[in-house]
């Protein structure tokens, strides 16, 4: 399941410019009409996800697939809550107070929260959880790699001191993602996980289903409304939809695009659509000819007709990409003009670079929905500029495997659900970035990146980030054509679950759901 680390469904986070949720509840059953209705208590909510088989886990620090995410977010709570519009609000942590240099934080925690076993939540639990996040095989490692884990300190029962290795002006952004949610002190193997979340653990069988019951003492306001929550693994997309249509489940994750279109028309179920910052991109090795010449890279970006790609490759379920990553996330630069198709300019750039009649090979794979279709379309669009793109299909098993094909391709496709600009740039474009797909190496760029990350002052940080994104937009090796939507489905009797840019199925907020 490791390829799913960054598959289309992985949720994303962080506060953003807001307003990135637009096409909400496109069916004729928009929730607004019922907003005035008071939520009803009781019943069982049954949710179907793509299963992960034996790889499924309930341990937040190992979890990698959407179904794991749904479970973790039901049982545990984050330090920082990610809202549907990608803004942040206090979760288990109320305040984040950096020192002058942003190299140490004091974090004030809520003091009115108890775990499912009645013990009060406090600093020791946060410290224990960060230790688990820093474990060797932890999926949360990138989020805590900048923390001096050994020197974590409980200042008092509800204050933690977090020392850093290098400055970070926005540390709270690291503690939103479900891999960083908070377990109880002493938790080891998660055989019977204890959290502070809206649901209490009852049972879990990997690859089949898990059952949780309502936490009546939940600290968050409102729900949970349902008595119990059943999460079922159904991997076949048609079987998952059939289960929803026949009433054997009430909600399903990841509805196929074509089926989403059809059921929006029929209106027998609610199709839940949320714009999201998960980006689909073509990428280019910027160090190898002909792409070591920026004019050629730019020409490729000008060849793409993005609206057509979105319409035909992903049935229109996406917003236009602009060759930079993280639309809707904090520090994303909305002021950069939208790049559009310009065949004449592409031609003259290629001519100037001496690459008229360019022939290149684009490696694609059916690992992510939309990859092969978008590659085929791009090849057609390139013909207008005299560019011949040969397509080569790579087996899904080696496409993202760095010991096989991945990171060795000249021209290929990728997909990122960026958790924040910080993490995308650290993972893909910094010096020593583990997934440097475009082979981007620039000392000055790297310096700028760490300045941006370490800056406490929001306006100054924004200025650094704008500079970084301008460089990528002008010279980078990414052609991002879309930010793909989250598309899920609900039965008509489910209320309260709203589309969220933060994650699929309304960011798995089952505490908000109720049965009419």
């Amino acid at each position, binding site marked *: *399941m*490791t*390829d799913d*680390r*960054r598959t289309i469904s992985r949720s994303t986070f962080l506060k953003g410019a807001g307003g990135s949720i637009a096409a909400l509840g496109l069916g004729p059953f928009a929730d607004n009409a019922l907003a005035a209705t008071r939520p009803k208590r009781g019943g069982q909510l049954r949710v179907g996800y793509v*299963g*992960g*088989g*034996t*790889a499924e*886990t309930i341990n937040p620090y*190992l979890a*990698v697939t959407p179904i794991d995410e749904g479970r973790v977010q039901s049982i545990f709570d984050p330090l920082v809550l990610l809202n549907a519009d990608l803004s942040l609000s206090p979760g288990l942590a109320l305040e984040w107070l950096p020192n002058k240099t942003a190299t140490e934080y004091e974090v004030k925690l809520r003091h009115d929260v108890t775990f499912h076993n009645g013990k009060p939540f406090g600093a020791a639990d946060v410290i224990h959880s960060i230790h688990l996040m820093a*474990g*060797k*095989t*932890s999926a949360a490692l990138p989020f805590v790699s900048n923390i001096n884990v050994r020197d974590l300190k409980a200042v008092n029962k509800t204050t933690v001191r977090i020392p850093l290795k290098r400055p970070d002006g926005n540390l709270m952004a690291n503690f939103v993602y479900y891999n960083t949610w908070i377990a109880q002190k002493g938790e080891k193997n998660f055989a019977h996980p204890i959290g502070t979340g809206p649901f209490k653990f009852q*049972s879990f*069988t*990997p*690859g*089949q*289903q898990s059952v949780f019951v309502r936490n009546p003492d939940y600290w968050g306001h409102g729900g949970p409304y349902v008595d119990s929550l059943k999460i*079922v693994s*159904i*991997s*076949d997309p*048609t*079987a*998952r939809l*059939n*289960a929803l*249509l*026949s009433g*054997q*489940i009430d909600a399903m994750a990841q509805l196929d695009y074509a089926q989403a279109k059809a059921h929006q028309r029929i209106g027998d179920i609610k199709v839940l659509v949320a714009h999201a910052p998960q980006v689909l991109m073509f990428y280019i090795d910027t160090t190898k000819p002909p792409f070591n010449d920026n004019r050629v890279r730019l020409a490729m970006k000008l060849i793409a007709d993005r609206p057509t790609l979105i319409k035909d490759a992903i049935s229109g379920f996406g917003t236009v990409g602009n060759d930079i990553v993280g639309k809707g996330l904090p520090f994303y630069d909305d002021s950069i003009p939208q790049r559009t198709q310009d065949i004449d300019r592409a031609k003259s750039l290629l001519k100037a670079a001496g690459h008229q009649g360019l022939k290149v090979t684009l490696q694609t794979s059916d690992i992510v929905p939309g990859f092969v279709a978008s590659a085929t379309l791009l090849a057609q669009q390139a013909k207008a500029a005299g560019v011949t793109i040969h397509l080569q299909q790579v*087996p899904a*098993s*080696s496409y*993202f*495997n*760095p*010991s*096989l094909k*991945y990171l060795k391709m000249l021209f290929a496709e990728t997909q990122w659900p960026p958790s924040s600009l910080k993490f995308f740039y650290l993972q893909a474009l910094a010096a020593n970035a*583990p*997934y440097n797909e475009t082979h981007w190496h620039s000392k000055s760029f790297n310096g700028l990146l760490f300045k941006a990350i370490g800056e406490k002052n929001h306006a100054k940080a924004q200025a650094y980030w704008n500079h970084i994104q301008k460089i990528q937009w002008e010279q980078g090796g990414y052609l991002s054509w879309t930010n793909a939507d989250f598309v899920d489905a609900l039965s008509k009797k489910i209320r309260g679950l709203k589309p969220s840019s933060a994650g699929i199925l309304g960011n798995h907020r089952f505490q908000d759901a109720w049965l009419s």
Partner: protein
Amino acid sequence: MLVFLARRIAGALAALLAASILIFAAVELLPGSPASAVLGRDATPAAVKVLTHRMQLDRPASARYLDWLKRFVHGDLGDSAVALAQGEQHAPIWHLISGPLKNSAILAAISALLMIPLSLGLGALAAVRAGKPTDHAISIGSLVAISLPEFVTGSLLVAIFFVGLHWLPPVAIVPPGADPLGSPKQLILPVTTLLFASLASGIRMVRAGTYEVLQTEFVQTARLNGLAERRVILRYALRNALAPSVQVLAQNLQYLVGGVIVVEAVFAYPGIGSQLVLAVQNRDVTVVQSVAMLIAVVYVTINLVADLTVMLLVPKLREPV
């Protein structure tokens, strides 16, 4: 008799040994290495090294093979490679697949219990009515059914009985630990799909065998002696036609072992097939290895039992040559 038995069993063991070598080699030959395959996008050199060690891939293949085989014989299927990659200390495969295995066995058993009498009955009926409309209907119907792949049959049945008529549920979700027989309605479509795909060859074989016997002199004699037609068919014709049919029925039982994989995926039935499909998707090589080997064992066992059954039905085979 004993010599025959011993030879058969030895043959079965040899087949299993060959299968085990093939299965083990197939995993060894994955591009990169099994550890790299399991890790996928996380297959950084350091991660590959750690998992290579944890999966003991740094030991010679022959030693690992013998070790795997020895443990398999003792009922230890090993640990899930993906779970190890995720950092779990222990993830016994048996614990993960025993429940699904039981569910699949139940699905296959119900299908087999229906398949055998249906094949015999419809086959004999077609033979008795040879050349008449009943015969044509049975032959053509069964041929059409077998020419459709299971996922098409399954989808068609869902389209008719769920989307069209709303009679039957389109998926068979069984909670872990629950008995699939507790909600028998859910099993109707999966079992029907399996029967559609497996009945035809049995029916045709039984029909051919019975038809042939019906033409023989002793059946004619029996008829001329005034025996009731029912008695002629059941007592004389069908019994003699049975021997060749047993092999075909055994083949169909073996088909069921493989057929459940597709059918389970179509109906989201939590069986061993669904587990195998997921294990392949997850590139959980140790689970794939062990499940494939288990399926091989079932296959060979069915074959062995079929051979022995034929021997019991045909006395000639029991005599030493």
